[in-house]
């Protein structure tokens, strides 16, 4: 079975969609229901800041990989010769 490494990358992007949605919901909760004070703004800023750093860190490593490479798994598994 041969497939491109892009499959893993697309799965990762698929994970990032709900992750971003949850993050936005969290920020919405903070601003909608939190107190209007320093802690609310500071913790939200820290959350966004660390998230951006993590995404940039991930991008740094992800960009170094050749995702167009093909990968073969389970080679020869279904090439069994039956001799009667």
């Amino acid at each position, binding site marked *: 079975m041969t497939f491109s*490494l892009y499959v*893993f*990358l697309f*799965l*990762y992007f698929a*994970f*990032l969609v709900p*992750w971003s949605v*949850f*993050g936005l*919901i*969290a920020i919405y*909760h*903070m*601003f*909608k*229901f*939190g*107190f*209007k004070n320093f*802690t*609310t703004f500071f*913790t939200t800023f820290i*959350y966004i800041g*660390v*998230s951006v750093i*993590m*995404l940039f*860190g*991930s991008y740094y*490593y*992800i960009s170094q*990989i050749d*995702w167009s*490479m093909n*990968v073969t*798994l389970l080679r020869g598994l279904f090439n069994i010769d039956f001799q009667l």
Partner: protein
Amino acid sequence: MLSVYRLPNKIQDEKIIKILRRDVFILIKKMCLFALLIVLPLIFFYLAFSSQPSLFNGTISYPLIILGTSSYYLFIWVFFFFSFIDYYLDIWVITNERIIDVQQKGFFARTISEQRLYRIQDVTSEVQGFFPTILKYGEVYIQTAGAQQRFLFHEVPHPHEVRNTLIKLAERSKNKNKIKI
């Protein structure tokens, strides 16, 4: 957004006496769990690298490790932030007129209930367990004559002091509203 100057349905001459959250130790416990979740993969990678150094050079394994690690840390980061929000947005406000209970339950559920102080019938404080006794946090149960008969201040710092404050405020409120105790 809530503000100490804009309480929901503010009563005339209402003053905030106390704003309570769960004890800070509860947040520290969450942070310790988060720290453990950060460290665990590092230990795993250290052990894996010691026994199988080729794991980090493989055509499939290396991209999978990068994507898996990134997904894992992004997930626990958002999980921790939600955990913090759960702590931060659960508040109890004691004013000279009423108590307000604001609870965030999961992503999309939020309950706000309030009770006038003169309706308070009985206040009980409870400190149970090793850490609550050492760090002085616990429960305060408030029995009222309202539809929601029992209010619970969960894991709040100095519950006995909170109980005393509530009893004094309730008595004052009953006198003000001329209700017999």
